């Protein structure tokens, strides 16, 4: 039996490691570096109904052990993703988790309805937590009732299970998680980026053209761990954990906190081979821990 095999709603994962949305494009660039079949799944870049250019540059700024980004959901739009990106990904035996974004409920519903019918899309990740767009995005992710209603509306039309990506920019993360669970979510992915800003000391102005951006990388890992620790004890749906993972020890920490699978984001930029490397290292780590199957680790910190 495969010690890394993980079964989640809609997702039969040969291992629990996947690149996080927005850090992997639609896979083409990384496919030149390694065989994407090695991945547990791929969370593709957020798709909106219409193509988006995104924000002006500079779009990234480095921070201690992290980075800020304000890309602004640049993507080729639903048609482009359905016509070019998803069919190309069909050559790989890897489930695709399609990140769905919008500015109005109707946008989310439309994208979810159509993208969930693509043969290799096995789950949706509802992006209610992007901090870098003026309308929608994070607004849906900070008011529990709004998040619940949106989840419900998307669930009604989606042909595949729906995971909701939670924003850490809230006072009560458990309340948000429970709201999306009540809305019918099949799972939760967390956390999205934390809102942040850097100011250029020469110009005295924010470095990012968008002024503020989303903080990611190892700097945010403790925030994610705390939130997953709390949420996993209060909901009955699985969590895919993310935020600053750079080693197998980090993956274990996410499992102990209560995650059932993990996504790797920013570290793909630092080490483009990080996903296959950690997948390869995981069995050795399980041996070291005296654990046969990775799922035995879920929630160990509070069980």
């Amino acid at each position: 039996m495969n010690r890394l095999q993980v079964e989640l709603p809609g997702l039969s994962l040969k291992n629990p490691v996947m690149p996080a949305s927005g850090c992997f494009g639609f896979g083409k660039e990384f496919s030149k570096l390694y065989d994407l079949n090695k991945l547990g799944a791929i969370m593709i870049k957020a798709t909106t109904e219409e193509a988006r250019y995104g924000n002006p540059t500079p779009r990234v700024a480095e921070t201690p052990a992290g980075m800020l980004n304000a890309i602004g959901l640049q993507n080729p739009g639903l048609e482009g993703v359905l016509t070019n990106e998803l069919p190309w990904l069909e050559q790989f035996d890897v489930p695709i988790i399609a990140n769905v974004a919008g500015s109005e409920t109707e946008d989310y519903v439309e994208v979810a309805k159509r993208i969930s019918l693509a043969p290799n899309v096995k789950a949706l990740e509802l992006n209610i937590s992007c901090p870098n767009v003026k309308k929608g995005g994070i607004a849906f992710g900070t008011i529990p009732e709004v998040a619940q209603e949106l989840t419900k509306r998307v669930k009604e039309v989606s042909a595949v299970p729906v995971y909701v990506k939670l924003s850490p920019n809230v006072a009560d993360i458990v309340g948000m998680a429970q709201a999306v669970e009540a809305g019918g979510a099949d799972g939760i992915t967390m956390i999205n980026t934390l809102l942040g800003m850097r100011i250029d000391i020469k110009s005295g102005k924010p470095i990012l053209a968008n002024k503020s951006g989303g903080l990611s990388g190892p700097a945010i890992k403790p925030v994610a761990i705390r939130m997953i620790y709390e949420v996993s004890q209060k909901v009955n749906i699985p969590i895919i954990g993310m935020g600053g993972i750079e080693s197998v020890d980090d993956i274990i920490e996410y499992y102990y906190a209560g995650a059932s699978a993990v996504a790797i984001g920013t570290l793909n930029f630092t080490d483009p081979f990080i996903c296959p490397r950690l997948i390869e290292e995981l069995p050795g780590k399980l041996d070291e821990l005296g654990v046969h199957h990775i799922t035995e680790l879920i929630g160990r910190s509070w069980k």
Partner: protein
Amino acid sequence: MIQQEMMNIIKHQNIAKDIYELTLQGTLVQEMGEPGQFVHIRTNSGVDPLLRRPISIAHIDKQLNQCTLIYRAEGKGTKLLASHSVSSQVDVLGPLGNGFPIEEIQRGETALLVGGGIGVPPLFELAKQLNQNGVKTIHVLGFETAEKVFYEEEFAKLGETYITTVDGTMGTAGFVTNVIDEYQFDFHVLYSCGPIPMLKALEDRFKERKGYISLEQRMGCGIGACFACVCHLAEEPTGAAYVKVCSDGPVFPIGKVVLA
């Protein structure tokens, strides 16, 4: 093909104020081709700073498996890189991006190479390759001040070389455009790398000419996945169309992208 390799540091020296010349050895060099490509370097083994640093390739020696990079130690990452000593190793990802097309100019023709500051290094490999192809090169290299000037002699060996400094401490006082406007060089193809205002000034003058410019932009991944370094296209300056500096560039035909 893009490779990741721990490359050996063969030589590492300070060649002008804050400017370092770093010679690396490794099999990755065999993948390098056109001048103007870059490598993405991890300046430390930890996660602070987190991102790699894009640095252009100044010289390629495939026989020795060596390449030379020239960079300015200004921020946290490049200052850390400057502290690496000879015989240690650095984590290099590359070669990345598309360089200057050298086949766009014929033997016997003249290329005008214009560089500004830390945009000068990739022009050195370009000048070498063009010279090997029998192309005459004229170099106009702009710097802030005399103590930041580098490679003036190396360029002079390859062709007519003009140095400008903003403060007039070496060569012509002012900008590269002062020299260009004064001499009105006769050339077939323009190749340039440097700060945006300089590239804009060149574009204003040579929009109708055959030319290629290399852009600098803050990058995340360096391979085209993160969408940090995108530019609008000149034909559709506010539309959804774009190019990525890291993987579609960094070299673009003059006038193709919006310089912002």
